[in-house]
């Protein structure tokens, strides 16, 4: 069947799609928790304050089972009470802030990477990329001069930086899954 075409997420998703705790895949007390953070930039190098990032990843053992309950709701008032932190849902959603910055608190994916889907005002069709935390055979399939755009930079124990450039000299590698 012919697919329904994509359209931009636009500027006004902010009261609809992000939700409290959307970037907190790991329970706050999880000793294996890591922080991944960075900026989204446009082709002029300016920060993108109205991007929305979604994350999908394996748990620490590499299993991709996910679980419902990412945006668990209060049955009385419908508000988001969020994950209970016991099941790993594997899904995160974070809007960039006024500086174009995002932060994810999660666990190191057992299969080596976090999948990222990028939406933004001005972007007519979302983009997929991946965050790698070390060498991986997959990276050999990417042109060597662009490989580093898929690799997080370890800033200190448990804190990793990953910037996304939609365009320009530092343009991030984006994928087509066909």
């Amino acid at each position, binding site marked *: *069947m*012919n*697919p*329904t*075409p*994509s*359209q*931009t*997420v*636009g*500027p*006004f*998703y*902010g*009261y*609809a*799609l992000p939700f409290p705790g959307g970037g907190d895949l790991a329970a706050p007390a999880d000793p294996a928790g890591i922080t991944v953070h960075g900026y989204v930039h*446009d*082709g*002029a190098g*300016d920060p*993108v304050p109205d991007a929305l990032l*979604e994350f*999908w*990843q*394996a748990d620490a053992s590499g299993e*991709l089972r*996910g*679980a*419902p*309950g*990412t*945006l*668990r*709701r209060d049955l009385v008032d*419908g508000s988001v009470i969020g994950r209970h932190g016991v099941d790993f849902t*594997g*899904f995160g959603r974070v809007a960039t802030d006024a500086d174009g910055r995002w932060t994810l608190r999660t666990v190191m*994916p057992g299969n080596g*990477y976090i*999948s990222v*889907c990028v939406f933004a*005002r*001005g*972007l*007519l*069709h*979302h983009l*997929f990329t991946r965050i790698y935390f070390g060498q991986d055979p*997959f990276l050999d399939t990417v042109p060597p001069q*662009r490989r580093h755009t898929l690799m997080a930079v370890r800033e200190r124990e448990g804190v990793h930086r990953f910037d996304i450039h*939609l*365009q320009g000299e530092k*343009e991030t*590698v*984006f*994928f*087509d*899954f*066909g």
Partner: protein
Amino acid sequence: MTQPLTQADIDRELREAPAGPPSGHPDRDFAPYRSSVLRHPKQPLISVKDPDAAELSGPVFGVTDVTALDADLTRQHPGEPLGERITVQGRVLDRDGRPVRGQLVEVWQANASGRYRHQRDDHPAPLDPNFTGVGRCLTDDEGRYAFTTIKPGAYPWRNHVNAWRPAHIHFSLFGAAFTQRLVTQMYFPGDPLFPYDPILNSVTDERARQRLVAAYAHELSQPEWSLGYRWDIVLDGPAATWMEEGR
């Protein structure tokens, strides 16, 4: 000083725009929509054909992720919102025509006056204290979804002088795989603003564009209550189940 862009400038650009990809999706590089200029990659996408790719699976949602009231945007406040009450319903299918079951559908929209409940929407049209404009539901076993809401108004934006968006509802959809993710907009049939809008016309193929337009469905209208629209959605992209069957 550059001259302000007029509708005539945009009309000319739309006429001259090259045809988009065969999939029917917009080309991310679509200058008539000015915000796209600095926000699309110029390097080609890298093709991934790994049957073990994480993206061939995806997040799952369940009954704890929604409440029954979430699908009725007219019942989220003490009073009734202003506007024309409508229902929008349809099925979510994968590209093999199979229903997408138990997955999250999210919608957001302007109110009947064309104003979003968003701090950065400064269109001088009234907010409606009885309308937020956000809904969500899970698809059923046949892939069906349904929302009750009010028909959103058209609204101005600053792409060019006198730019107006046709009335639309924003939709966000999940399939069985992250590769099937879709964010799009649903339009209403016969809107006179269609030819002027660079976002709708970023879909350059007429038939593909029609797939973004709901059908008025009289049998879905409820007597003395609401007007019915039907809109089916087909998600693109491979999924793990598809890979298994293909082996």
